[in-house]
């Protein structure tokens, strides 16, 4: 496989990775926006439509992490054809290609660049029904009801048309049904600032990007296009300065294996329903204060293999006591064939242990005597297993 890097010609603008693939390929568009000159703390005139939103340092890191992961890992069941990256950050720095080590300049995520990149991305998908398109966005979002507007770097640059610097995401997803690619994956790592005031501009939800052509017949094949939202409520809960967000880290762990199952003939595959489960569980473990993930709309939900794994992933085993208040006082241990595999002392949260498939014995002990020792032997089958230890005072 030949890997070409860089911007070569109009169809290759903004690419950070391109591979020659015989047959259908996956094309990934990654947008990370942290620098908003016209929002609070920005370098330009502050927009009257700032809505309390400010600068984000986590989002570009999330986008870099996703792009690097896609280049290194996303190659089955559809081989990776291209990765496009747009980044807006206060101090721009190159993107480090994870396999070649090349340091690549990255274009900013202005609305014009995002529109161009979306058009090029769609054009790649129009190569055939077998193409796969993946969109990852990390930045600010404005939501009201089901409508979601994604803010590009230059949101608010036009005083009387702030939303010209934004994208009408729901329209993009709807209009993409006319793209030939029948498998499309959308990941939106955006804080959804609920704002009727910002969206109440007639029916203007930002740039529509694509218009549906009703004269064109419908695609003969049904589209599979699950959408995954982080949609954490508010910027303060969202930001992890200088690090990928909680959602992105959970997403990558899910794509790496915790979002897989072997229901289809024993082959390990990342599927939408399992990935959603993994996101819920992993985010709750890391940041329980963030609450439940918002509900994904149950639409475009045909079965789709997001990623095929070469081998079984480890299972994330979540060990806790029943009643839950006993967990804080418990020391946990895990044994395989009477050999200790792992141990943890008292701690506030459940104990999470990555374990390969197999049989294990889990033990809870209480140094303070508040509960009686308890143990249970269970098969661990990936991706996620809860092991409740029912303890008595």
């Amino acid at each position, binding site marked *: 496989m030949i890997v070409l890097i860089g911007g070569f010609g109009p169809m290759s603008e903004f690419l950070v990775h391109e591979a020659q693939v015989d047959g259908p390929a996956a094309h990934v568009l990654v947008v990370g926006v942290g620098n908003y000159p016209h929002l609070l703390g920005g370098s330009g005139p502050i927009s009257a439509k700032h809505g309390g939103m400010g600068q984000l340092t986590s989002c570009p890191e999330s986008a870099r992490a996703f792009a690097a992961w896609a280049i290194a890992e996303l190659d089955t069941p559809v081989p990776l054809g291209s990765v496009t990256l747009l980044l807006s950050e206060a101090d721009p720095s190159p993107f480090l290609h994870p396999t070649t080590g090349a340091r690549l300049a990255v274009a900013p995520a202005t609305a014009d660049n995002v529109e161009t990149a979306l058009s090029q991305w769609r054009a790649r998908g129009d190569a055939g029904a077998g193409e796969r398109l993946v969109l990852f966005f990390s930045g600010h979002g404005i939501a009201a009801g089901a*409508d979601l507007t994604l803010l590009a770097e230059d949101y608010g640059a036009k005083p009387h048309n702030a939303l010209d610097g934004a994208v009408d995401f729901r*329209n993009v997803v709807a209009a993409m049904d006319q793209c030939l690619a029948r498998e499309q994956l959308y990941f939106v790592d955006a804080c959804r600032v*609920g704002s*009727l005031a910002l969206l109440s501009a007639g*029916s203007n939800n930002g740039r529509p990007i694509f218009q549906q052509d*009703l004269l064109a017949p419908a695609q003969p094949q049904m589209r599979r296009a699950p959408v995954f939202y982080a949609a954490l409520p508010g910027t303060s809960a969202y930001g992890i300065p200088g690090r990928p967000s909680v959602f992105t880290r959970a997403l990558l762990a899910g794509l790496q294996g915790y979002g897989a199952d072997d229901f289809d003939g024993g082959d390990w595959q990342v599927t939408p329903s399992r990935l959603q489960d993994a996101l819920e569980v992993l985010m709750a473990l890391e940041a329980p204060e963030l609450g439940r993930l918002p509900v994904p709309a*149950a639409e475009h939900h*045909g*079965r789709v293999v997001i990623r095929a794994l070469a081998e079984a992933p480890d299972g994330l085993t979540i060990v806790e006591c029943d009643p839950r208040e006993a967990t804080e006082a418990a020391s946990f241990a895990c044994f395989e064939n009477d050999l200790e595999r792992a141990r943890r002392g008292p701690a506030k949260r459940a104990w999470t242990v990555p374990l390969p498939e197999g049989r294990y014995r889990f033990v809870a002990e209480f140094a303070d005597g508040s509960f009686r020792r308890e143990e249970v032997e269970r098969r661990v089958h990936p991706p996620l297993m809860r092991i409740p230890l029912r303890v008595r005072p």
Partner: protein
Amino acid sequence: MSELLLRVDKYLDGAEVPHGAVAQVLAFDSRGGRSPAADVRDVVVPVGGNVAPASIPVEPGDYLIEVLLPNGERTSAEVRAGEAPVSVDLAVTHSPREWLSWQHLVGGVPLRENMRPGRGAGPVRLEWLEGLPRGRVGLAGPGYPWRAVLAIVTGAEPAPEGLAVAPLTGESGWQLYRFGAAGALKWLDQEPEPGGPMRRRYLVARSGADVSLVPVPVPWPITSGGAAVVDVLVRDQPDGARILISPMDQYIAPVIGFLSAGSAQPARVLVDHARSRLFEKMVNPFAAAAGGYVLLATEETGDTAWHPLIANLAARFDWLPDGAVLQGRLLLRHRSGSADVHAARDSFMEAYRRGLPFYTLGLQWLVDGLRTFAGTGDEEAGRMLATVQEVAWHADLAQPFATLRSGTG
């Protein structure tokens, strides 16, 4: 062959749900390796405190059974299937209160809810509005049915007088109301004449300045005759009052639970098991609409046998916006020429005239449909879109039924 007798042991205050959860039965060989050829996929499992189990024939061997409930809870059990049938009672989290057990199953109560008291701003007041006629409007009409609900939610106009109702039970921050059985809520004694004016019924919850409004799908007919009890749970939360409508329909309530949680595939498993019950006699158009949403959301290429059911639903129940929304979306998705496009446009506009859809997904899909035509310069669709979108901005997407709240959804 061997036999597994599967059930989920969950207290439901006497209720039993034969189609309550979906299981995957994963087979293992004697050395602990996977034996996928002996798997049994997408098994419908009964849920209840005393419900009869489902019988699953399997090859003798070791199995891991993993069950998903509508509330998102997963539970699992290991079992060895031998000569005799093996009973498997899967344990799950129980409701924090017995009277919330049904809502806990269908996802209306968070799995690990600790029943914190409400915000203490005074009790939520629940009102029952029957006074909003469907108000058929012309193609360019003022959108009365939509403006009326918007006025209530935004407080733009004095709301019509509502009938205050008493809760069945509750505690601080939580109130349970009920249609039917011992509940204080009643549906109309007489159904309207066919073709006559259909009055929409809404529940409105007020807590301070916060308002929530939901169209109520009552009566909720069931195939065995009569109507199912419909529970209404009202929660007073820091960001306003929430209303959860839960028909106690043992076949369709779990479908609605999965659907509102975004778990379309298990919902599809349940709908496929209940398809004849949902559609053949079309006893309950609300249930049929829920099935229609699941079928459209999970449609695969060539999966068309149910398409006429949607047309039937849209045509037979001319007061139900959801049937017209489903028909419009189906026509647009499968259009082969301008006739289909025109028919889809007619369906979306008919849905608009019928008023606020009963389901949240219907409201979203109506916005999508009207936006498609508005984007082509269709001014009529553009006017309707502006109204519907303004209403949809108030939708609480976490609720299965179209619940509007003051502020944004």
